[in-house]
C-alpha cells in the first residue's frame, strides 16, 4: 500500500508540485482515471504559504496539502453513485464517468481536498497520477508532484519503506480519524525570537539565557543568545501564554504576557548590564 510523505524541513516553496499537477491534468483527458482539470482555481495538490514573525525575525512556511487517500474515506462511504473507489495500492480515485456532480463528497471531505468542476459537473481530486502508474509503470513509479520536487520533501512509495518516517510523523488532521495515507514532519510550530542588546555600550549580549515559562503549566523552554544576540525559542505550541526571562551575569529582564496565537518576533530588546 502506497503512502505520501512530506518532510517540510526541506520544502523551499517552489510550487513545482502544484504546477506538476496542473501540467499533468489541465488540458489532458486521462479518462477513465480523470477528466481535465480547470486551468486555474483547483489545487489537487496546493501549497499553503504563511509568513511568520516580525522584522527581523521572520520565517516562511509552505505546507503542501492534497487528498489523504484515507483508508476510512468519508467520500467513498458517502458517495451515492458509488463513483469513488479505493485501489489495491491504497489510492482513492473518483470515477469521472460515474460521478453525478452531487457535491456530497465535496461537503464531507474533512481535508478540503475535493473540487467541483462546474463545466463538466463532476467532483475532481488527486488521483495519485494512477493513470501513469498503471499506464507506464516502467517510467512512472511516483506521481508527477513527487517527480517534480527538487528537494525530496515530497515522496511516495510503499508504506513499509517509510516506516521510520511514519513512526515519527506529526499529526495533521489525524484527529478526524479517517486513516490518512499522507504523513508530515516539520509542520510549522510557533516561535518566539528576539535580539538582546546592551543600550549603553550598544553591543549585542551574547550568551544570555532566555527562558519562556508557560504561565499555566509552568513548563519552561530555554536557549542562549548567539553571537548576534539572537535567541530563537522554537517548537512552541499554539495559543499558550508565556513569561520571557532574559538573564546574564546578574542582570535580567522579564517580559510577561507573550502569547503564541501568532509567532512572535520581539525585535531588539534592550537589557542594561550591571557594571
Amino acid at each position, binding site marked *: 500500500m502506497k503512502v505520501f510523505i512530506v518532510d517540510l524541513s526541506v520544502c523551499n516553496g517552489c510550487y513545482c508540485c502544484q504546477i506538476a499537477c496542473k*501540467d499533468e491534468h489541465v488540458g489532458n483527458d486521462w479518462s477513465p482515471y480523470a477528466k481535465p482539470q480547470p486551468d486555474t482555481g483547483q489545487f489537487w495538490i496546493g501549497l499553503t504559504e504563511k509568513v511568520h514573525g516580525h522584522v527581523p525575525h521572520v520565517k516562511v512556511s509552505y505546507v503542501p496539502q492534497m487528498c489523504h487517500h484515507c483508508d476510512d474515506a468519508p467520500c467513498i462511504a458517502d458517495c451515492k453513485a458509488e463513483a469513488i473507489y479505493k485501489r489495491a495500492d491504497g489510492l482513492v480515485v473518483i470515477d469521472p464517468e460515474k460521478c453525478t456532480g452531487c457535491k456530497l463528497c465535496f461537503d464531507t471531505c474533512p481535508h478540503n481536498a475535493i473540487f467541483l468542476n462546474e463545466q463538466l459537473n463532476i467532483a475532481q481530486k488527486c488521483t495519485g497520477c494512477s493513470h501513469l502508474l498503471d499506464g507506464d509503470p516502467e517510467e512512472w513509479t511516483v506521481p508527477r508532484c513527487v517527480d517534480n520536487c527538487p528537494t525530496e520533501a515530497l515522496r511516495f512509495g510503499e508504506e513499509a519503506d517509510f516506516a521510520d518516517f511514519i513512526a515519527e510523523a506529526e499529526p495533521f488532521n489525524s484527529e478526524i480519524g479517517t486513516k490518512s495515507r499522507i504523513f508530515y514532519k516539520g509542520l510549522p510550530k510557533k516561535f518566539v525570537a528576539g535580539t538582546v542588546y546592551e543600550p549603553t555600550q550598544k*553591543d549585542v549580549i551574547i550568551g544570555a539565557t532566555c527562558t519562556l515559562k508557560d504561565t499555566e503549566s509552568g513548563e519552561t523552554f530555554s536557549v542562549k543568545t548567539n553571537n548576534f544576540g539572537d535567541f530563537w525559542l522554537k517548537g512552541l505550541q499554539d495559543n499558550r501564554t508565556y513569561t520571557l526571562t532574559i538573564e546574564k551575569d546578574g542582570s535580567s529582564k522579564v517580559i510577561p504576557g507573550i502569547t503564541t496565537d501568532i509567532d512572535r518576533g520581539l525585535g531588539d530588546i534592550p537589557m542594561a548590564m550591571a557594571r
Partner: protein
Amino acid sequence: MKPVKTKDKTVLRSLGLGGYFGGGAEGMVDVKNGKIVRVRPMRYGWKYKKEEVRQWKMERNGKILEPTWKSLPGPFSLGYKKRVYSPNRVPFPMKRVDWDPNGERNTQNRGKSKFERISWDEASAIIAGEIRRVHEKYGYNAILMQGDGHGECKTINTPHGHPGVLLEYLGGFTLQVRNPDSWEGWYWGAKHVWGQGAQGIMYPAANIVKDTVEHAEMVLFWGCDPETTPWGFVGQFASRLCYYLTEVGIQQVYICPDCNYGAAIHADKWIPVLPNTDAALQLAIIYMWLTEGTYDKEYVATHTVGMDKVADYVLGKEDSIPKTPEWASAKCGVPVWTIKALAREFGAKTTSIAHYFGGGFIRGPFSHEPARLECILLGMQGLGGPGVHQHQWTYFGLPRAEGLGGTFFWNPEIEERLALPVYSSVAAWQEQVIPKTLIQNAILSDEPIKFRGTGAQNALTADQFSEYTFPIAPEKKGSPIHMIWTDSPCRITCWNFGHETELALRSSKIECIVAQHPWFENDCLYADIVLPANTHMEVDDIVTNIRQGTMQPNIMLTEKAIEPIGESKSDAQCVLEVAKQFPGMEEQMTEGKTTADLQKAIWGYMGGEKLVSWEQLKEKQYWIYSTAEDWENDPPGFRQFYLDPEKHKLNTPSGKLEFYSEALAKAYPDDKERGPIPKWVEKSHNHDERLSSPRARIYPLLIMSNHGRWRVHAQCDDITWTRETPTMKVTGPDGYKYEPCWLHPFEAEKRGIKSGDIVKVFNERGIVLAGAYITERLRPGVAYVDHGARHDPIKTGEIERGGAINTITPGAITSENCVGQIAGGYLVEVQRVSGEEMDTWRRENPEAFARKYDAAAGLRVDAWIVDGGDK
C-alpha cells in the same frame, strides 16, 4: 481498467532561460497527438547507467553532497507549456494599421494603434524595402540592431541577434551593447580592485564550492537570493546546496532589505539593510576591523595596495568623519549593535560572500562602491585562503567536467550564422555602438553622446578608459538612428527609465521599427512590423548544458516537440525570410547548411569525436560528461595568489588587490562618484536618491527590486499556474492581476493601504500600478517590486498598469564614467489608488481599459489586433 496511453514520444529540452549557447534545468517533454502533454525534470539515467558516469562528491562533517541523478528545474520551466501555448503568442506577421511606409508613418501612435495581419511575403518585402531606403538615404549605420540578452536555450536558433548577421552582410549597423545589467557594480568597480575577473566577478573561481563547503564557517548571502535567480539558469541545485550548509552547520547570514525567498527558509540571521546603503555597512565593518585589529594584516601587507588610504578615509583622517557603526547605522538602518556583531563574527569566522546577480546590492546608483568595498572586506580577511571566496552561488566553482570543449561566444571556427547572434550580446563589435543604457538618449538627443567604456561584457578593464562618441564621424559613415530591428526585446521592463524608452520609440526620427519575438510583449507594442518567432519547442536544435553552473553537464539534441504555432518561424528563419529579398544573401547566410549539418558541426566544436560518437548522440539524444578525474586538484579561487602573490599576480596594474586604484586616479582625477578608493557617496549630479535628499520628503521610500521569483527578467509573466501563487500577482478589486508591491505593515498603515489594494508607485519619472502585498518580509522604509512584469500602458511614458517598475528607474547611468543601469535603491512614494483617480484614467485613456484582458494569463495579443481584441 485499460491502461491509457500517456505519450507518443519524449524529446529533450534545456528548460533554462539564460540562453547564450548554454543552459541547464534540463527537461523531458512528452508529446501526444502533436501536443505537449507534459514537461518534467530530466532523468539523466534515461539512456545511461549511473555507473557510466563519474560524478563528484563533497564532504563535510561526514555528510555527503553530490549532484542529483535528475535535473531540478524551477516552476516556470516546468510550467513552460503555458508559455508555448500562451494567448500572447504572435500568430502571424503584423503591421501597425496606421504605419504606411509609402505615406504617413504616425510614429506618435506607436504603443496605441493596433495591428493588422500581413503575409510573410509582404512583411519581408516591406522590411527589405525599408532597409534599402534607409541605407540609401542615411547609410547603414542608421539601422540599430537590438539583439541581446537572455532567452531560451538554443544554439542554431538562439533568440536575439540573428538580424545582425544579415545587417552585417549588407554593410554594417549600429549595435546596441548590452551592459552588465545584473552585476553592474563588479563590472565597473571590482575589476579595478582584483583585475578583469569574469566580467568583474571574482575569477578564477574553480572549486570554490568545494572549498567553501569544506572550510567556511559562515556564508554571507549579501543581496543574494539563491531561491530565485539560479532557477532561471540551471534550476534548483543552489537550494539543495543551502540545505546542505544547514545540515553541516555552516552559518548562513542574509543581508538584504527583504526577507527574500532564501532568507525565508535558510537564514540563521536576516539583517535588513536599506536598499543601496550596503557601502555604509561595509565601511563600518572596516572601521571595526581597523580599530579592533581583527583583520589579516600580513595578507594586507603582501597582497594589497592602498590600505593606508582606505584606513585614512574610514577612520576619518581624510574627511573628519569616522565611518563608525553609529555613522553607518543612520544611513543603512541596521542597528549599531548588529553592525558590530556582524563585523566581529565576520572577523572571527572563516567567511565567504555569496551572490547570484541582481538583488538590492549591486544595481543601485554608484554600485561600483559596494562592489569594491566587498573586495576590500574579503581582502582584509585573506581572500583566496581556505573558505574565503566571492561566489555567484553555484554559477561558478562547481567541479570541472572531463573533456569540456566549447561553443564559445566567439570562436573563429564557428560559422558566423551561429556565432554572431551571441557575439552581439557580449561584444561591441560594430563601428558605431550605443550602450543599452543610453539608447533613448541616442534617439532623443540632437547632440553627440560621449561615454567611457562600452559596457560590453567581454570588454577588458582598459575599455573603461576609452572614450566613445555616438554617432561616429560622418566620414566613418556615422549616422543617427532612423530604423530599429529589435529581436526579443524587453528594454522597457528590464532597463533604465522605461517610460523614456517608450517616448523615444515614438520619435518621428525613427521611421521604422521591426520587432521579432514569439510573444507580443513590452517593446513589441511600439513596433511597426512584428514577426512571429517560435519557441524552442517548435524547432530542431542542439544544446550544450555546460555553462552557468550545471551540476551535471551534458549535450543534448533537441528534436522538435511540436509543429510551429500559427505562422511562426525560427529566430534564424525570420531573418532568412528577409534575406531572400536580397540576391545571394540567403546562400551567404546559410552556406547551404541544413539544421542537421549545423547540429553535427556544433557537436564537432564541442570536441565531440573525443567524447561520444555522432551516431551514439543521435541514437540516445544526449550525452553526459563525467567529472574530471583530477578535479579536486584545481586550485580554488584565488588560492595561488593567496599562496604566492609575486608568482601568481592578479590582472591589475600592480598585480595585487588594488584597494586604491592609481589607474582610476590618473584617468578620472575629478570623478567624485568613482574615485580611486571606494567611498560612501551621498549624492552626485547624476543621482540624488538617498533618504537624506529633499526629494525624500515627497518620495520617502527606497525601492528594492530583484529578478522576479516567477520570471526570468521579462520571461514567463504569462504562465497561468505561477500567476496563482501569492507572490506572483495580486488580484485587484477590478479583477486585474497586478504585480505585487511589498510594504511593511507600518508603512501600509501610515498610508491607509490594505492587502490587495491597487496602489501606485511613483516619482517624477512616472507612475506604476501594483497590488499591495503587506508583509513582515520587508523592512520599513522600503517598497519592493520585482522588475520584468509586462508593460501595459495606460498612458505611454507616464502611467504603467502592468507593473513594469523599471519604467520609473533613474535614467542616469551608474555614475559619470560607468554606463551601467540603476535597477533599485531609488526614491518613490506609494499611495492607494482611489476609485476617483482610476475613473479619471479610465475616462482619459478609454482604449487602454477597453483592451481584451485575460486575468489567468494576463495580456493577450488579440487585444492589439484590429477586430480581434475588443471586449
